[in-house]
């Protein structure tokens, strides 16, 4: 039986990591707009997920301005897969 991942229980983090599966790397502002959260809220989520090794963030430029690019790591992809499996088990009433 799959276990829920404590780093992904917050709906915003589940949403963030799921969004990252659609791209190889994405700019901070695109994620912020997609999630509908403030810069500081997104920064906290990204920092937490980066500490867990689930995302990688790096400084870069976009349209000539400094920005942060965020990507899902292989560990994050695996954790997301397990977390989604655990949620499906809950939905199916398997536990």
């Amino acid at each position: 039986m799959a276990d829920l991942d404590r780093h992904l229980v917050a709906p915003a983090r589940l949403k963030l990591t799921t969004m990252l599966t659609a791209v190889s790397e994405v700019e901070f502002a695109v994620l912020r707009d997609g999630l509908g959260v403030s810069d500081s809220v997104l920064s906290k989520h990204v920092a937490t997920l980066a500490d867990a090794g689930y995302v990688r963030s790096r400084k870069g430029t976009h349209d000539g301005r400094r920005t942060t690019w965020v990507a899902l790591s292989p560990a994050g992809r695996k954790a997301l897969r397990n977390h989604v499996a655990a949620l499906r088990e809950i939905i199916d009433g398997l536990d």
Partner: protein
Amino acid sequence: METPASRPTPDEAAAALLDAAAARDQLSHRLALPSWFHTSIAMAIVVQTATTAVGVADQSAAGMGLVVAGLVPFVLVAAVQLVRFRRLNGAWVGGLASRVVFGTDAAASTAHLLAVGAAIWAAFEEAWWLVGLCAIAGGVAYSLCGVRWMRSYRGDPASQSRGESALLLTALGVSLFAGIALLVVVGAR
């Protein structure tokens, strides 16, 4: 520090999954291709196919130079369009770069290989109109495979977004050059 996870109810779990999938799908549908994306790649493939065929059939150093020169527009178009895509969307999709632009999609690489092979044969036969026809067919097929990939990506972004590894792309590039060199050497005998 993280607090222990509270267990969601089945309804909460379903809502969380639906919400996350909707956000992912919204992002993938928002990604737009730069103007003339497929057309410019098709044209670059047409030029590359035709110059490869004429260059290989020429059986000379100048012909080999033509083969290499034919790759230049393709590399330039690929680089410019990928930079434009990244600037336009604030996102990078490895699958788009490898499958659509560099043709690692099975159908695109097969179509390209067939077009190049047929164009080389036509060039050896000095059927220049057929060289042009094969090159155009190859370019159109290559870009149609790209259009098809975009549809697949928007239908299932999670499984389509990742591109081939840099190692595989390097191996494919080396194989391409080795194949062209072999054709020139064999043809020169």
